[in-house]
């Protein structure tokens, strides 16, 4: 009870200037995180430079909860590369390996077929209705590196959004009640 009384006193005793300073510091932290994210998007050339592996279709190489670093260059897409692509109509990107490549002589355009290492069949079942191949514009990036387990934070926050709210609430409380 005394602790709560202390907290309420500290909230009441804050001056307006102090509050403003704290709000600006918080804003600085958020915007620098945003700058780093956008900077990564520029460096790697990909819309989402980091993705979390959501399914077990690439096991035992990539397990659910690993994060992948992506890079997209102008180099042509070749068999064996692990690519991240979006299928029209699905918002969740899929991370699978390219198993077939047919590159046109005249236009340089490429038809690509992918398959998850741990899946029995290729990805034609996942593509849009009537689609037999992926083209370059479907592909968001190539996986070049990976870190295990770090993506579980994102998975937990997406599947149990209550945890996200608790975290943000606690962070907000910490900012308001800290005396710096």
């Amino acid at each position, binding site marked *: 009870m005394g602790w709560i009384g202390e907290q309420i006193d500290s909230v009441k005793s804050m001056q307006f200037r102090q509050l403003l300073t704290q709000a600006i510091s918080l804003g600085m932290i958020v915007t620098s995180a945003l700058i780093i994210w956008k900077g990564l998007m520029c460096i790697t050339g990909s819309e989402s430079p980091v993705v979390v592996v959501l399914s077990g279709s690439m096991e035992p190489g990539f397990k659910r909860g690993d994060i992948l670093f992506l890079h997209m260059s102008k180099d042509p897409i070749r*068999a064996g590369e692990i690519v991240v692509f979006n299928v029209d109509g699905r918002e969740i990107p899929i991370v699978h390996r390219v198993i077939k490549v047919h590159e046109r*002589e005249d236009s340089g355009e490429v038809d690509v077929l992918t398959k998850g290492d741990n899946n029995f069949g*290729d990805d034609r079942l996942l593509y849009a209705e009537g689609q037999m191949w992926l083209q370059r514009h479907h592909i968001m990036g190539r996986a070049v590196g990976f870190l295990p387990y770090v993506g579980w934070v994102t998975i937990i926050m997406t599947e149990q959004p209550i945890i996200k709210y608790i975290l943000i609430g606690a962070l907000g409380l910490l900012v308001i009640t800290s005396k710096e």
Partner: protein
Amino acid sequence: MHSFGYRANALLTFAITILAVMCAIASISDNFNTPSPTSQVQVLNINWFRNKADGDDEVSMTMNISADLQSLFTWNTKQVFVFLAAEYETPQNSLNQVSLWDGIIPAKEHARFYIHTTNKYRFVDQGSNLRERDFNMTLHWHVMPKTGKMFADKIVMTGFRLPRSYR
């Protein structure tokens, strides 16, 4: 300054930084490995070779694939994904790569192998350009680390040719 909160925060930040540095060093250590893999592929038999109803050629073959990929493994290697692709050129397409077989090598002990198999994935062309077509058999591998950068490379084996007519 010495409250539990501050100490826990400092400890956690330090732990995460050290972990990140260790992962980076583990990945960098992979660059010191100079691999010297070898492989050999023989096509034993063309089982059948036909033109499908939709106009594309398809061929089925039985092969012997042998390789020694032990030098690719380092202490930071989780697995090596290996696949064999047939690569060829047609008048319509400047490059075609069709994966015929793939496998996962989980440990160094299994990296020297010899298998006798038909193609796991269908060898289908875009069109009917496969008769008497020269093609390369390329063994590709993808070293997937425990943390960090992935490496991929290949060995190209030339000198294969498909039959002149359908069977």
